[in-house]
């Protein structure tokens, strides 16, 4: 195995008793002594601190930055107000998703957070499309923390009271523990919370300051995955990928009107012909929530059938796990559009047995954002 990279918080994870696993080229904490289930429940009940420093942080500078980014993603970047963040996805010529990302308008620059496994490709894509007019700065000297849960606001406000006034998807520069941090009110759990970009040498100090609040526990990648799945959020490389379009993935809410047919800046992104046609004509398959009726989890790769016997698989599970808050198994996957109505009875084949599963509304647990 190639050498695994470490985040600035690596030693602290070991000291906290984390079990480390390889993830996207990094040695990352999958769980702490509390365990996945209790970490998940703690995050929904109080607050959890996640090290997400493996993710890519990128700054775009230059007058043409917003227009340039719009050539790569089907989102409204030019219209994004200063101090606001938006969800987006890089598309390819076939209309597939190359990565998903968050981008923020921080006044004189755009700040992007992309997936760890795609960050080198994303930076190359940005440089290829935007340079030399736009400067693409790949930030490698900052850590990224996520503080999530109903007690996140009170915990972070102890360090900087002004963060309480931020709304969901606001971004701001905030001094935390004496250092300049870039804070957004967002996350990947369905809970209220913040994502904090912090200079690497100050990351451990900030993490310890947050963990000193008795409401805050460190949370590993295991619970991060069950939290995001309960929240109905896609994991790149699993629920969405280069062969999946945003229309199939039910992410059309993330394509603003101005970029759609009839909009002032319609199209002009990779795969626009395919995606705009799909928006007009529909697609053959869709990402849906799936609730197994028994207790057996349906893991990624589980084949979905229309009937209890016979027939070919009509779809498959792309993420599946046990939901600690849901108190039962949950999954997401792709099924034919005519079988994607909520409540449709389908079957998942687990260890050779067809088990009943119903198409279900996403998210599985209600979102708790501060709008």
């Amino acid at each position, binding site marked *: 195995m190639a050498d695994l990279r470490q985040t600035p918080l690596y030693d602290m994870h070991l000291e906290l008793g984390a079990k480390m696993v390889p993830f996207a080229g990094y040695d990352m904490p999958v*769980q702490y002594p509390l*365990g*996945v*289930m*209790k970490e998940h429940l703690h995050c929904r009940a109080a607050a959890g601190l996640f090290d997400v420093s493996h993710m890519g942080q990128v700054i775009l500078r230059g007058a043409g930055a917003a227009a340039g980014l719009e050539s790569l993603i089907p989102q409204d970047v030019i219209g994004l107000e200063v101090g606001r963040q938006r969800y987006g996805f890089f598309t390819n010529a076939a209309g597939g998703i190359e990565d998903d990302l968050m981008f923020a308008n921080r006044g004189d620059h755009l700040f992007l957070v992309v997936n760890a496994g795609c960050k080198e490709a994303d930076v190359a894509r940005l440089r290829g499309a935007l340079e030399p007019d736009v400067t693409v700065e790949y930030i490698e000297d900052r850590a990224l923390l996520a503080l999530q849960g109903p007690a996140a606001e009170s915990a972070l406000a102890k360090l900087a009271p002004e963060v309480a006034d931020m709304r969901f998807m606001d971004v701001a520069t905030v001094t935390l523990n004496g250092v300049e941090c870039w804070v957004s009110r967002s996350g990947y759990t369905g809970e209220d919370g913040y994502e904090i970009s912090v200079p690497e040498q100050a990351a451990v100090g900030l993490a310890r300051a947050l963990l000193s609040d008795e409401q805050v526990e460190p949370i590993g990648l*295991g619970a991060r995955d*069950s939290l995001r799945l309960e929240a109905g959020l896609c994991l790149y490389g699993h629920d969405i990928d280069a062969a999946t379009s945003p229309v199939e993935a039910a992410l059309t809410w993330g394509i603003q009107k101005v970029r759609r047919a009839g909009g002032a800046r319609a199209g002009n992104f990779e795969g626009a012909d395919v995606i705009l046609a799909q928006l007009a004509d529909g697609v053959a398959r869709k990402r849906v929530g799936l609730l197994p009726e028994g*207790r*057996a*989890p349906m*893991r990624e790769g589980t084949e979905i059938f229309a009937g209890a016997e016979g027939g070919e698989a009509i779809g498959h599970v792309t993420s599946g*796990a*046990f939901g*600690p808050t849901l108190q039962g*198994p949950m999954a997401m996957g792709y099924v034919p559009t005519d079988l994607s109505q909520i409540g449709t009875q389908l079957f998942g084949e687990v*260890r050779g047995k067809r088990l009943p599963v119903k198409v279900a509304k996403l998210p599985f647990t209600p979102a708790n954002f501060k709008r």
Partner: protein
Amino acid sequence: MKFTEEHEWLREEDGLIVVGITEHASEQLGDVVFIDLPEEGTEVTKDEEICVIESVKAASDILAPLDGEIVEVNSMLVDEPSKVNDDPLGDAWFFKMKPSDLSPMDDYMDEAEYKKFVG
């Protein structure tokens, strides 16, 4: 009590063998969320996969430690799979079997040997 390399424990009780998984196994699995038990009355062969345990992380199999018949399963685990984490050596036994051949018992580890095995 005897232990297998598959991290099962075996305890003799009234001519039957009670089978569960060790504390070490339950810790490695993490939070157990689902257990698929064999049916009572099933004839099983040593090393046959007869139970599935799903934790928050993954699915694992439990192998029959001996030839014989499953005479009782712990159906409480179906509703309360987390018992496997809380009390793996006690309340969370998986099944009781009537062995037809006890000879493999001699090859299984005693507690001291098992402790050494898991290091």
